[in-house]
């Protein structure tokens, strides 16, 4: 009989964690494929929720075991051929397990939420399968200590994003959105793969720990280091919707809202997570670091501005996601991976909460257009609370959520690069302004036709929302409990005051502009409104700079292929056999042609052989 000790689940069992999601996918397939119809699709969703809960419990159990211990690496030799060694390795540490818990917790809440949100959708089974796939991939990325494995998982996320965005695939807009999401991310992934191939050749190692050691000692040619670094950041760049690969996230808002909850909090985080783990390699080249900071800054400011002009509830927040991920990029570029990670996690919680609120609004009012919403304050108390708390968790105004990380980032930047501190203040202010704007337009003012009779959502959606609201409210206490509470030195207090002031200013301007009696829907200047609403015309830029040239080249080559190459090769070498399709042999006639060819061949061969006497006995 095995004693209790043998049954205890140790850190080695971290292997199981990604498989909960994937097993869920497999179990949901009979419903997803329409094989089982009698029961309706819900059992698939229940199974997946159960498995996600198991993953969460398992993750928490392991987290308790490894808390405060050194990271442990688990290796599994997956594929070795010639000099290529693809060992899948997992890092089991409080950091990675904490992230796993964070991912699976959010996934669990989103799936419960989806039960309510997709109540009457026949595709719920497929949705459950895809969420399982997603969750497995994200958990894997959190644990992975292998760049190769992480790349593979990122690519799986790209695929599942494609399928999730294309969830309602009968709608034309959804189809384009899914296509664009896939192709944009694919551009990033392709460059990342080039980087992976290169780095694997240079370093001979593909584990993050191995790469860290290699980066510390290597004397790689700076040009190659820069090129490699740029290729490596391209993947996360696409995944995190950073300039210039950011447009897909906006379009991806065509997906069902529960998927958007995860996408804006966890999936973008998965991309940034890889970036954070790669930081030692990226720092080989100052060029890469500089590019990270520049891209991050452009996206942070640009995204915050564009968000201001969106009248679509989901899109305005998706741009804000890009903006915050921009701050993460800049932090990685400044060599602050730990702070970047914290920002990522705290932002994810607040953003998930905001998107849950958005989902309830869409569910009850059947619109996501800000111009059609208003006066919901008294009708949807849970949503109002979620929205307000989520907004406060996003910005540095009250000591909730992102406040704690933004002030520390500001403190670090004030010593390293004060300009970036300005960026933080600006983004914080603009985000506060936008959140106040949306809050005013949705909850205040007079009711609109679509909001007059809106009720609060049912408990399946309200429960996850309330849980996350409470969790966000408790952040300061949780941080203190886990020992992440920063030392409250005077410099930090100054930063806190500065950021809170910027938040207050933004919120104040927003309240002044949008909380009054009259509904102001647009920015004061129409040109600016258009420029921002169209995302600085990025879509048109893609068309002009990438899509049209490639398409023109393709069409040109195709023309050449049809009229040039085919004709030339046919014409020059084989003219006498072909006169287009004018060959009017019967079948037997063609047989004769062939036999003739063979006979000629044999004769030629024999003649040739007879001419070289020594070949006779040669073999």
């Amino acid at each position, binding site marked *: 009989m095995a004693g209790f000790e043998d049954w205890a689940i140790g850190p080695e069992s971290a292997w199981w964690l990604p498989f909960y999601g994937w097993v869920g996918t497999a179990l949901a397939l009979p419903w997803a*494929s329409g094989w089982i119809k009698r029961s309706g699709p819900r059992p698939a969703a229940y199974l997946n929720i159960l498995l996600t809960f198991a993953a969460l419990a398992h993750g928490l159990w392991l987290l308790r075991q490894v808390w405060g211990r050194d990271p442990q690496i688990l290796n599994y030799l997956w*594929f*070795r*051929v*010639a*000099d*290529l060694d693809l060992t899948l390795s997992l890092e089991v540490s409080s950091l990675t397990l904490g992230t796993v818990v964070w991912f699976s917790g959010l996934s669990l809440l989103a799936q419960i939420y989806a039960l309510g949100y997709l109540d009457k959708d026949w595709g719920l089974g497929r949705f459950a399968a895809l969420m399982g796939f997603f969750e497995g991939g994200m958990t894997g990325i959190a644990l992975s200590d292998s760049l190769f494995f992480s790349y*593979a*998982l990122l*690519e*799986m996320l790209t*695929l599942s994003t494609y399928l999730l965005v*294309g969830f309602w*695939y*009968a709608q*034309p807009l959804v*189809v384009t959105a*899914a296509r664009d999401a896939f*192709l944009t991310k*694919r551009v990033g992934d*392709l460059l990342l*793969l*080039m980087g992976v*191939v*290169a780095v*694997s*050749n*240079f370093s*001979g190692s593909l584990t993050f720990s191995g790469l860290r050691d290699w980066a510390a000692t*290597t004397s*790689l*040619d700076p040009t*190659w280091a820069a090129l490699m670094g740029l290729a490596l950041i391209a993947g996360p760049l696409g995944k995190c919707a950073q300039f210039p690969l950011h447009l897909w996230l906006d379009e991806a808002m065509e997906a069902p809202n529960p998927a958007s909850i995860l996408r804006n909090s966890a999936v973008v985080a998965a991309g940034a997570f890889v970036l954070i783990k790669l930081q030692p390699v990226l720092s080989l080249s100052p060029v890469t670091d500089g590019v990270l900071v520049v891209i991050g800054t452009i996206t942070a400011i640009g995204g915050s501005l564009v968000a201001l002009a969106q009248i679509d509830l989901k899109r305005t927040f998706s741009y804000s996601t890009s903006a915050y991920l921009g701050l993460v990029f800049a932090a990685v570029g400044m060599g602050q991976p730990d702070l970047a990670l914290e920002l990522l996690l705290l932002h994810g919680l607040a953003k998930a909460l905001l998107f849950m609120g958005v989902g309830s609004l869409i569910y009850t009012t059947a619109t996501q257009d800000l111009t059609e919403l208003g006066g919901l304050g008294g009708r949807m108390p849970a949503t109002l609370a979620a929205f307000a708390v989520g907004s406060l968790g996003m910005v540095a105004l009250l000591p909730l959520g992102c406040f704690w990380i933004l002030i520390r980032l500001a403190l670090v930047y004030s010593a390293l690069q004060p300009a970036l501190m300005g960026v933080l203040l600006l983004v914080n202010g603009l985000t506060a302004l936008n959140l106040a704007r949306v809050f005013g337009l949705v909850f205040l003012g007079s009711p609109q036709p679509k909001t007059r009779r809106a009720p609060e959502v049912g408990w399946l959606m309200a429960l996850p929302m309330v849980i996350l609201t409470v969790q966000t409210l408790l952040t300061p206490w949780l941080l203190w409990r886990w020992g992440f509470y920063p030392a409250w030195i005077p410099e930090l207090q100054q930063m806190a005051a500065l950021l809170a002031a910027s938040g207050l200013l933004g919120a104040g301007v927003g309240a002044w502009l949008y909380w009054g009696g009259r509904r102001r829907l647009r920015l004061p200047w129409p040109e600016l409104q258009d420029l921002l609403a169209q995302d600085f015309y990025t879509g048109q830029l893609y068309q002009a700079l990438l899509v049209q040239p*490639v*398409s023109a080249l*393709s*069409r040109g*080559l*195709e023309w050449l*292929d049809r009229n040039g*190459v*085919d004709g*030339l*090769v046919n014409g020059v070498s*084989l003219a006498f056999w*072909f006169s*287009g*399709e004018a*060959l009017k*042999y019967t*079948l037997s006639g*063609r047989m004769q042609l*062939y036999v003739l060819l063979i006979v000629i*061949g044999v004769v030629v*061969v024999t003649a*040739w*052989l007879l001419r070289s006497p020594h*070949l006779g006995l*040669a*073999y």
Partner: protein
Amino acid sequence: MLSLLVGIPLLGSILVGLIPERAGKGLHRTVALGFGLALLGLSLGLLLLFDPQEGGVQLAERVAWIPQLGLVYELGVDGISLPLVVMTGLLVLIALWASGQVERPRLYYSLVLLLAAAIAGAFLAQNLLLFFLFYEVELIPLYLLIAIWGGPRRTYAATKFLVYTAVSGILLLIGFFGLSWLSDAHSFSYTVLQAHPLPLPQQLLLLVPILLGLAIKIPLVPFHTWLPDAHVEASTPISVLLAGLLLKLGTYGLVRFGLQLLPAAWEQAGPWLASWAVANVLYGSLNALVQQDMKKLVAYSSIAHMGYILLATAAATPLSLVGSVFQMVSHGLISSLLFLLVGAVYANTGTRDLKLLRGLLNPERGLPLLGSLMVLGVMASGGTPGLVGFIAEFTLFRGSFPVFPLQTLLCMVGTGLTAAYFLLMVNRVFFGRLSEVAIAMQRHATGERLPAVVLASLVVVLGLQPAWATHWVESTAAHLAKPVALNLAEAGRPTTAFEPGFSSLR
């Protein structure tokens, strides 16, 4: 043992040919399937007999046939040919299964089995003349299979195929004779020729006709135009054989005759070949991007994928050679799957036109199973991890990068384009609202379903367990690779060891 692999389908071909046409429905099919199954069983049995640790030729058989001509019946198998032989067994059975009810079954099944015998023979031959014989024999049945059971423009396509491939055969023959004639061994046997390498100028001289002959067969741009025509006109099972096996004869030849028999010339030509590979990949991919016929699109994608194999063979590191054989297997499985699915779409809707098809993923009125498999197939082709295409291409690129960094990166652009054109195809055909053609279609069960599921499973299994495919190749690849491989990982001095590769950029 190896003779059985040629003999069984040959016997089957004769037997099926002897059964009278009116002898019961499906009898020809049943007998042919039996022989196909036997062939697959035998080729799988080969896996048990083969020793993967051994790099050389195994299970050799040798009988002098026409010694005056130097034609010796010599068969043997090594790590390069073994996976291809097994794939022959698999794809022939799948093609037979997918054939369903054809007109004139006696001739049809007889020809398919004859084709199988010739392909197996070509992969197993250890003698240049014997290879040539099988290479030529394979033409006749394939020509007839396209010309009789093909689409509306079958005559044109079949004749074009015949003429191109006959020219390719003649070029090969010239090369083969030169090889034997110029070497002091005066033999056509691979092993003897390998032991007596020619001086570089003569090797280069011989490489030209052999390479041109293979380039037509593979096909490489600009000798590729017969392939889209042949694919479009050929029936589905024949397309499977054409893409899965026939093209592999060409890429197999690259390794066998280029790398193995003309090593010095091969190394000299390496950078040119790698650049040719890039041109091939980009040309094929960009052309695929604008095709409106699904089958033509897959055909151009095949052309592009052949470029990767050329690149890896040109690089000739142990890893890239494993990658190139792996890619042959991977492409064989994936392109066969795609052709089966396109064929099923055509059988159900009566069109392959991207402008007419929409929304076929619809669960009630569309083709959801085929659509899901199609998504899997195109994702595999576009290099999504977890499927065989990804790991094959990763191995290949990782192996080629140290020798040809720039060319490898440019070829990788091709994988991005692959994802793009296939995604556009899936997006148009399977997503969106049902189009008129799709609403009007008469759904009927076709023979493609089961084989498609089998291939899709293999695509997943080998994607998760790539060692099951590469295990056989490794020793042979190490054996064949360039004597001084630029192995960075083990060189220990990454930056300096990289210099030879880097210099090829300039």
